[in-house]
């Protein structure tokens, strides 16, 4: 119970800067990236009309998310933003579900990963808004309905980043803490596998989907 909420760090002092690296987060993220690259390689290695197993899984991801992206953004924009959405879901799903394998822990348990992804979505959404509407119209959006609502609109935009990243972080962190505490209470008998099934697989999948969908909705709100 002592290591509850503790993250392994590696401290480096270079040229007057105090740098702290969260080692386990970095290593786990690299493992997920390696796994995804391997999966992409296997899925596209020998494409055929009678698909292999990785190809079927890849086609399922692509077909379902293509439909959702087209519903939200329309055919033209979907071509630009579909790879982002699909890759984001696959990455987050692997990150969230990773905790059920012993010895590995979720990179999303550390706030830095969800916050980074949330800021990425924010920047991309506003870039898309400026690109489609033009800078003048984009600025004008902030002064609606009346001009002194501007600070409220700015705070509302910034709150989106906080809400989306803290939602993912809180769900994964809370789930792993509940698993730890309950495992300690029942001496690792019978109940923990069920908890891993619920918090690891179910909540992980739902939260990865919610994060992806909200990023998509933020982009489509800016584009309209």
């Amino acid at each position: 119970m002592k290591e509850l909420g503790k993250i392994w760090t590696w401290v480096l002092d270079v040229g007057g800067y105090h740098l702290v690296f969260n080692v386990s987060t970095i290593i786990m993220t690299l493992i997920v990236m390696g796994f995804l690259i391997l999966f992409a390689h296997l899925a596209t290695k020998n494409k055929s009309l009678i698909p292999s197993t990785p190809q079927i899984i890849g086609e399922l991801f692509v077909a379902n998310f293509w439909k959702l992206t087209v519903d939200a953004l329309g055919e033209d924009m979907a071509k630009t933003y579909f790879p982002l959405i699909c890759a984001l879901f696959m990455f987050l799903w692997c990150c969230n579900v990773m905790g059920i394998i012993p010895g590995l822990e979720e990179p999303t348990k550390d706030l830095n990963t969800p916050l980074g992804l949330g800021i990425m979505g924010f920047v991309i959404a506003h870039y898309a808004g400026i690109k489609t509407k033009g800078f003048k119209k984009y600025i004008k959006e902030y002064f609606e309905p009346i001009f002194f609502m501007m600070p409220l609109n700015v705070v509302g935009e910034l709150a989106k980043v906080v809400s989306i990243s803290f939602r993912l972080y809180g769900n994964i962190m809370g789930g792993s803490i509940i698993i730890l505490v309950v495992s300690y209470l029942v001496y690792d008998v019978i109940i923990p596998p069920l908890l891993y099934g619920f918090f690891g697989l179910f909540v992980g999948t739902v939260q990865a989907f919610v994060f992806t969908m909200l990023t998509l909705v933020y982009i489509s709100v800016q584009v309209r």
Partner: protein
Amino acid sequence: MDITGADFIRGMALLGAGLAMGLGAIGPGVGEGFAAGKACEAIGRKPEEAGLLTRTMLVGQAVSESTGIYSLVVALLLMFVVK
């Protein structure tokens, strides 16, 4: 036994963590139950749309759960960060 300032701060932080989690869980509980009830009604009216309704319900519940998650984050901060 004297109670020092640090002990008082620690106790109040733990009390605040309990209050934050307990009060913060009311809203998501009511909201998610409401969403599930409405989804049940809709499935009763249109059983062939059950898959779509269940998916929409789950996503909506996950979004409305976020206020409870914020209170969890605040409670964790009070428990592990306030010394």
